[in-house]
């Protein structure tokens, strides 16, 4: 294939719309984009159909009408978010409206008293729902349906008794306080009073829901009640308060309604629950719970109010109106159900986007090939340490006292000490998947923890967090500020910790998928303990794995697993900040890199390149089809079963290779030299290996090499 052709292929797969789309759909604010578009469309369409729709006078009146159901929509939204529903809002609305009018007109209470008492009534009615649904665990839908009927019945009874009295006293004794009038038709800076209050409450509600502990608990309860209960959230109490708040919000709307219309008709609030339910679901508050914000609820109510208003003004009859309402409701819920059901599936479907990678022809590792990679039996005499006592020691390291540490799958650091490493203890429990390790100047063990970030373990076993966040790339859609898969680390003489993050697009256990994709998703990050600042220093690396400080302390060596390259990143000297390729196109997949006693470097290899997989790397569309249509255990995988350890020097020349003919240490992810021995770890091994190296310095240790003799 010609150079130009390769270049074109590379460019063709470099940027992908599907990748952009997948990352876009992952965004939480995408849920709100559909209702937003609908809202804008509806306003434009109906605004142009109906005369004078946007004159300030009409607009202000419409806004005032919209705010009252707006409060009720907030109430409904919070119930839906909690995984419930409140159908009794219409009844509460009517009761509060009636009692507010009764208190102000018949009993002549001042507004300052009427408002809190009305809200209290709302809260009590809501508390009744909350008690039943939260503590007695009845189903929300039926319970609130029943309370709706009883609230309506109460309104009817109240109406029979007091309606004439209210009408008379409102007419004969016009106790019209300025405050009551202001509630009814006052404005602040030209904005109706109820709209002002609505916006303030929605804003505060948004902050409370998305930025506070109770808010998060609420989302947790709605999103997965069982999990919420398992993590110790007081589910019953939260649900109880949800309905209390729902009652209060509804009461606020009812007070404004009472002040505006002064009408005690018993039909008040009939059908309100359907209206607001329709609105909030249209706005993107899911009936499945755990999704939605006050802002979306208000968007929904704007849509519905605009449509209803327009239908009214176009002179559509009540039957048609109900048909349209039902259709909107069905449509909204149908879209909601389908959207939620298919969103994650479709993201999954388009998320993996393989790219083009052409690897140079590899040196032949077969016996008799005569190359430096020629298969041999140099690791035949490897001793076994801790057989079946470790589960996948990704990295191994030794301290000054000669104790051996392994980072294992259970999330522990296991320590072997004593004669022949016979004493095993769990040195620390990190929780995530510990990967690469390094000792700092103060003998703290710095550990990269997959899924968590960079952590430290003090010599006494105490775990502390170093960093789990870096600066975000603002030009990228995907939020890459969290560290997901810190892989290996090393520490510069000035104490700065350099560590690799293998991929930002996949989780720890999905690393083979990143291998299929082969995109530059990884990066090198630097943490400065003095300032506490974490910064990404090199972006767009293809699965950076091993990180090792050069012997002179002026550069960092980085091993790229799928690209089979070793890079050098300068941290000191004239080339500071520059990156260059040291070795390119090894025949093996690279894992960790560590120092050797003779001024060279050890490099662990998890597997061997194969011609078939190399070819697949040049055929992104083939890999895409495979990932899409073939179950994952049938994929063509890179060979990560048969690897080796190689040694290379400062100039990038490969000097030696070590192979294990027995297969026990054929999968090597890490090796450390210590006092003439090489210790071997592997991601899937059940043991640690120990190999005597010919000609190695019997006194050389890692900590001495980094931090000097002590």
């Amino acid at each position, binding site marked *: 294939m010609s150079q130009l052709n390769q270049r074109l292929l590379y460019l063709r797969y470099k940027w992908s719309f599907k990748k952009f789309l997948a990352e876009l759909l992952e965004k939480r604010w995408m849920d709100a984009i559909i209702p937003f578009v609908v809202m804008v469309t509806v306003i434009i369409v109906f605004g142009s159909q109906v005369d004078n729709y946007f004159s300030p006078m009409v607009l202000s009146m419409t806004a005032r009408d919209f705010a009252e159901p707006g409060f009720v929509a907030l109430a409904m939204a919070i119930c839906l978010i909690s*995984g*419930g*529903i409140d159908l009794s809002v219409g009844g509460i609305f009517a009761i509060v409206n009636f009692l507010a009018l009764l208190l102000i007109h018949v009993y002549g209470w001042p507004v300052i008293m009427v408002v809190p008492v009305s809200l209290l009534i709302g809260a009590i009615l809501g508390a009744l729902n909350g008690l*039943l649904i939260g503590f*007695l*665990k*009845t*189903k*929300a*839908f*039926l*319970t609130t*349906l*029943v*309370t709706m*009927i*009883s609230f*309506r*019945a*109460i309104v*009817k*009874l109240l109406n*029979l008794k007091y309606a004439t009295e209210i009408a008379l006293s409102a007419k004969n004794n016009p106790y019209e306080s300025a405050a009551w009038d202001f509630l009814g038709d006052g404005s602040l800076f030209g904005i109706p009073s109820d709209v002002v209050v609505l916006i303030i409450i929605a804003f505060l509600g948004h902050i409370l829901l998305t930025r506070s502990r109770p808010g998060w608990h609420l989302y947790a309860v709605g*999103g*997965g*009640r*069982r999990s919420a*209960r398992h993590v110790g959230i007081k589910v019953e109490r939260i649900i109880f308060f949800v309905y209390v708040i729902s009652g209060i919000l509804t009461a606020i709307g009812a007070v404004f309604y009472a002040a505006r219309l002064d009408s005690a008709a018993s039909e008040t609030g009939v059908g309100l629950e*359907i209206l607001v339910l329709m609105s909030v679901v249209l706005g993107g508050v899911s*009936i*499945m*719970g*755990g999704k939605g914000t006050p802002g979306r609820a208000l968007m929904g109510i704007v849509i519905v109010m605009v449509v209803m208003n327009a239908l009214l003004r176009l002179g559509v*009859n*009540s*039957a*048609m*109106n*109900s*048909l*349209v*309402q*039902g*259709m909107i*409701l*069905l449509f909204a*819920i*149908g879209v909601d*159900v*389908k959207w939620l*059901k298919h969103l994650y599936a479709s993201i999954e479907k388009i998320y993996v986007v393989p790219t083009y990678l052409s690897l140079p022809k590899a040196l032949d590792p077969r016996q008799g090939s005569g190359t430096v990679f020629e298969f041999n039996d140099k690791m035949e005499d490897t001793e076994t340490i801790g057989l079946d006592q470790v589960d996948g020691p990704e990295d191994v390291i030794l301290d000054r006292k000669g104790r051996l540490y392994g980072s294992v799958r259970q999330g522990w650091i296991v320590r072997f000490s004593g004669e022949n490493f016979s004493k095993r203890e769990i040195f620390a429990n990190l929780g995530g998947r510990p990967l690469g390790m390094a000792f700092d100047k103060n003998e703290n063990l710095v550990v990269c923890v997959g899924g968590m970030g960079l952590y430290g373990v003090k010599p006494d076993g105490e775990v502390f967090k170093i960093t789990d966040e870096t600066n975000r790339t603002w030009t990228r859609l995907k939020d890459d500020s969290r560290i997901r898969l810190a892989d290996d680390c090393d520490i510069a003489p000035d104490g700065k910790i350099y560590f690799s993050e293998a991929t930002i697009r996949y989780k720890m256990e999905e690393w083979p998928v990143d291998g299929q994709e082969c995109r530059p998703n990884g990066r090198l990050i630097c943490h400065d303990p003095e300032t506490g600042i974490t910064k990404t220093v090199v972006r767009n690396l293809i699965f950076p794995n091993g990180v090792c400080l050069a012997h002179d302390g002026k550069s960092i060596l980085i091993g790229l697993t799928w690209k089979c390259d070793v890079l050098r990143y300068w941290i000191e000297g004239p080339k500071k900040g520059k990156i260059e390729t040291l070795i390119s196109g090894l025949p093996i997949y690279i894992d960790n890199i560590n120092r050797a006693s003779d001024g060279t470097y050890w490099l662990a290899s998890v597997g061997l390149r194969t011609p078939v997989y190399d070819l697949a790397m040049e055929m992104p569309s083939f890999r895409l089809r495979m990932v899409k249509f073939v179950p994952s255990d049938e994929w063509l995988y890179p060979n990560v079963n048969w690897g080796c350890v190689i040694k290379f020097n400062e100039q990038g020349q490969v000097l030696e290779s070590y192979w294990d003919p027995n297969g026990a240490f054929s999968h090597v992810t890490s090796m450390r030299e210590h006092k003439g021995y090489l210790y071997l770890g592997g991601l899937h091994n059940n043991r640690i290996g120990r190999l005597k190296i010919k000609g190695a310095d019997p006194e050389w240790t890692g900590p001495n090499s980094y931090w000097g003799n002590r």
Partner: protein
Amino acid sequence: MVSLIQGEKEVNMTGMLRSRLAGLSQEQIVFLVSVFFFIGFSLFIQGFASIGNFMIMLRNISVLGIFGVGMGIVVIGRGIDLSQVTTSAVSVAWVLKLMQDGLSIPGAVLLGLLLVILMGVINGYLIAFIEIPPLFATLASGICIYGFVRHYLLNLLNNHYVPESCKSFLVLGQGNILGIPLPVIWFGIIALMCHLFLSRTSFGRFIYAQGDNEEAARLTGIGIRPLKILQYTLCSLIGYLAALIMASSTSSLNVRIVDSTLIFDVVLVVVLGGISLIGGRGGVKSVIAGTILIGILLNGMVLINLGIAQQNLVKSVVLLCAILLDTFMHPSDEETARQGDI
């Protein structure tokens, strides 16, 4: 340790209470309560204990009972059909209008039947294929259907009468056989048929399986989706029969009945008798037990001249008690509860 033992004791206490109650089935409890109310009303309400009133009561509750049998089928399958009353009422209103327009009785009834089956299938489709939760699907479809039929088929008229030319239609609801009002006999026949369907046919057993554990039923090879469509169609169909009898016995039908609390009475009858909303429990017997209790209660309330509002208040309290009893007897397992199951 102490608290643990106390906790165990508590569990045992409620467990014992539950098992003691469970010794009696919910139908039996409801039946006992009905007897209690019956004796109480006979003693304290004048005119309650008379053959005439008894017949009126039976006639009135038959319609409710037939609606309840239809709803029961859906609730056993862990669904609910809030559009049942709407669907049947507007269809029968259309049937009456067709009769007024001069169509023969069988022709009108057949057209109404087609309409109601179509609506049942649509409900089933929304729930089985689009996977909208039944509560929402039927709530919304009810509103839709109400608007659609009133606008396109009924010319916005609410009250529909049985025309003079179709007086024979009235036999359906007003006739007697051996002094027993026909609606009661219809109720008996429909209840028996549904009982046989639910307990003796494989489709009936499948509905129980679906209500008990839908996923397991699907994995054993039951076609859940067609089964759901069948349930909602049956529910609409039986509701249609109930509405026909209702229209026939009163010679008219007002579609505003949709705005009344009839649908909640139906749910009340079903849940009260022991068809748990959790699904897979109860049967036609439960509906009959629930119907008798509600019939006695409604009749008593009418006799002591309670207004509609007061009646609703009492009914909602009773329904609330029924739901609480249901929750107590069949507590939903929080570990297997599914999201969106409200």
